[in-house]
């Protein structure tokens, strides 16, 4: 036992160190901030000012989560998405929103296409409901951006189920494909999808950059409003910010309770349906459009094309289908401004992705050595606390324009759970006996890891790094609140420019943001292509 005791102690110390860096310190800073912040304004006056926003946030969160859940449950019946789809999930939200807005806005490309095809059409659409910045636009952007994530999670779980055997049994008993799916697979899928769904809900509660671009202003979403108030310097506004942050936590909790309730209801309803013994007559093999990879390819291409055309157009007035003039020089004239942002974005992303990736690999290696094969949800805690609340607390404690180290740390706190989530399935399923084989042949633990495990898991390892990189590139709030002057990034600039209304220039920045992530994913997929 003499040699195993130090190993165990080292393992515990390493886990404690990782927990300290990415969980304990972030939470202690928040706890300190909350307990030392006096709430001067009364809850009544705060509710008067923030109540409408709070209701709207709850509505948007629940609607987004429910639509995404049902679309994913129905959509995961289709063809399986593969690793390439991870690159679509990783498209930065801001770039996606800027591109999609031009596509679906009331005078956007799709409406122009309808106008060109149907001469009787009286466009563009005139309705405040459908204006570029509205609750509906916000919902569309959030749903389309979050759905692939839940689809991928659903399909990862489905792959581990004996679907073919269940299907054989159900069909032999006379059930249709559709009833088999909803009565057998969906109930088994709801529990494993709980955590990813909560991550989506919490993201929606606290997202700021997307509402800034496409969300309504009166009332704005609560996170959006708290973000705006935090730029004001009066004591009254500060009190409202504190109440707003508390309300966000409350909303997050209520949203999770509602989603848990919905899951319970759905389980009961499907369970009751299942025991009626009723078989439907129709075969029902058709899936949802969202399940089709071509839908996502088309969407991604349309958004990308929209960004490219916008970035080079000089004039593009309704109802013209194509720009009436070009001004590609915009790219050249903007380059001196883009270059330093690109440098900041990449430096931050490379360092934070590497730190997050290393932490995730170390943690998973320790878990694998202890034969723990399940995802440890405690390491994902940063994804189930509203980001605005976390970053607000950090900003109040460490100051608004700090060193690169604090910024790097804040990015890594959010990159780490995604690296862990992306890698855990492949890493913990890896048969350790291959490592024992290498070691029985005389190789040490490091040599066995690098020469046997790493080449065999090269693709998941590379994708986990790429995912962490893309998460850092997409970060808005941590950069905007912790280092807006010293370390602006492509994302912070794209949001500033787009919220100022210059969509042409914003498209240039959004494209650079997208290309940064795309290059990394293509390299990750390319260099890890299996020969055998």
């Amino acid at each position, binding site marked *: 036992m003499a040699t195993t005791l130090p*190993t165990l102690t080292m393992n515990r110390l390493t886990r404690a160190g990782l927990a300290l860096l990415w969980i304990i310190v972030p939470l202690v800073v928040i706890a300190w901030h909350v307990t030392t912040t006096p709430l001067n304004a009364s809850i009544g006056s705060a509710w008067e000012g923030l109540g409408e926003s709070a209701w709207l946030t709850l509505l948007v969160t629940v609607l987004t989560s429910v639509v995404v859940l049902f679309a994913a449950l129905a959509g995961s019946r289709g063809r399986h998405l593969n690793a390439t789809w991870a690159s679509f999930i990783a498209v930065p939200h801001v770039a996606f929103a800027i591109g999609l807005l031009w596509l679906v806005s009331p005078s956007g490309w799709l409406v122009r296409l309808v106008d060109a095809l149907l001469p009787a059409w009286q466009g563009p659409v005139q309705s405040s409901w459908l204006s570029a910045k509205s609750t509906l636009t916000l919902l569309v952007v959030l749903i389309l951006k979050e759905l692939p994530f839940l689809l991928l999670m659903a399909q990862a779980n489905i792959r581990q189920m004996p679907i073919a055997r269940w299907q054989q049994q159900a069909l032999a008993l006379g059930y249709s494909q559709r009833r088999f799916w909803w009565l057998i697979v969906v109930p088994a899928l709801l529990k494993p999808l709980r955590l990813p769904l909560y991550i989506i809900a919490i993201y929606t509660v606290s997202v700021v950059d997307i509402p800034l671009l496409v969300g309504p202003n009166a009332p704005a979403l609560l996170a959006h409003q708290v973000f705006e108030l935090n730029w004001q310097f009066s004591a009254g506004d500060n009190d409202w910010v504190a109440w707003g942050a508390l309300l966000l936590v409350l909303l997050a909790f209520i949203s999770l309770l509602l989603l848990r309730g919905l899951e319970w209801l759905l389980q009961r309803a499907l369970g009751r349906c299942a025991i009626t013994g009723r078989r439907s007559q129709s075969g029902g093999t058709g899936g949802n459009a969202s399940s089709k990879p071509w839908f996502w390819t088309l969407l991604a291409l349309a958004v990308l094309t929209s960004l490219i055309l916008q970035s080079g157009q000089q004039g593009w007035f309704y109802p013209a289908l194509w720009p009436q003039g070009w001004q590609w020089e915009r790219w050249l004239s903007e380059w001196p401004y883009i270059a330093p942002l690109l440098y900041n974005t990449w430096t931050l992303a490379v360092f934070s992705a590497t730190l997050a990736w290393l932490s995730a690999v170390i943690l998973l290696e320790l878990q694998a*050595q202890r034969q723990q094969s399940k995802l440890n949800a405690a390491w994902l805690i940063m994804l189930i606390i509203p980001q605005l609340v976390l970053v607000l607390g950090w900003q109040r404690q460490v100051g608004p324009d700090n060193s690169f180290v604090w910024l790097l740390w804040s990015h890594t706190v959010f990159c780490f759970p995604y690296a862990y989530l992306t890698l855990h399935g492949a890493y913990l399923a890896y*048969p350790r006996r291959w490592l024992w084989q290498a070691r*029985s*042949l*005389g190789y040490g633990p490091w040599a066995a890891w690098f020469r046997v495990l790493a*080449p*065999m898991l090269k693709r998941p390892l590379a994708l986990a790094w790429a995912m962490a990189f893309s998460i850092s590139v997409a970060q808005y709030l941590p950069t905007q609140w912790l280092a807006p002057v010293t370390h602006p990034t492509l994302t912070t600039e794209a949001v500033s420019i787009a919220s100022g209304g210059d969509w042409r220039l914003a498209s240039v920045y959004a494209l650079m943001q997208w290309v940064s992530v795309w290059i990394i994913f293509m390299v990750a997929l390319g260099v890890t292509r299996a*020969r*055998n």
Partner: protein
Amino acid sequence: MLEINHLTMVFKHHQLVIPKLSVAPGQVLTLTGASGIGKSSLLQWVLGVPQPNVAIAGELSLNGVDLTQRPIEQRNIGLVTQQADLFPHMTVQQNLLFARTAQSADRQAWVAEQLNSVGLSEYGDAYPAELSGGQRARIALLRSLAASPKSILLDEPFSALDVKLRTSVREFTWSKLADAQMPAMLVTHDPADAPGEVVNLEHYYYD
């Protein structure tokens, strides 16, 4: 000589207490017993694999050298398993070269000779996925022997093979081990696999 002394393995619902087990050079000791009794765990302990869910105390020595505290890579004990465990990202030749120590003379020629001896010379550049079960089993044994181990552990090495292949791979294994003259331990469910002494672990079982 491979020797196990005063071994106690405490599992969740039972324990194994083995006062002494020894295997002489050239001998294959076969371990049998009900599923879950701890045959593979015992083999893994001999190999040096940490087992967080089993409390183990005991001594292990090979040719008089105490191995109890040594990590896997310093034990000089080879392993052959049911799945063969050839590294899928390496060709057959690369698998064998990976196992052969860097100090060995003329490594390439040794690999060619070994492949030739088992009639697989043309498979040097093939990946494990392109081999049949019997071919994989032969290469797995060659790979274990390539590192010149002083003992070898066989964890159900024949159970994934059909009856005909099983007999031929078994004969191939015993002839190779007889040449190498090293102590070996075999875990199996099939009494027909056992070439010599058989130890039933149920005799060492305690609730």
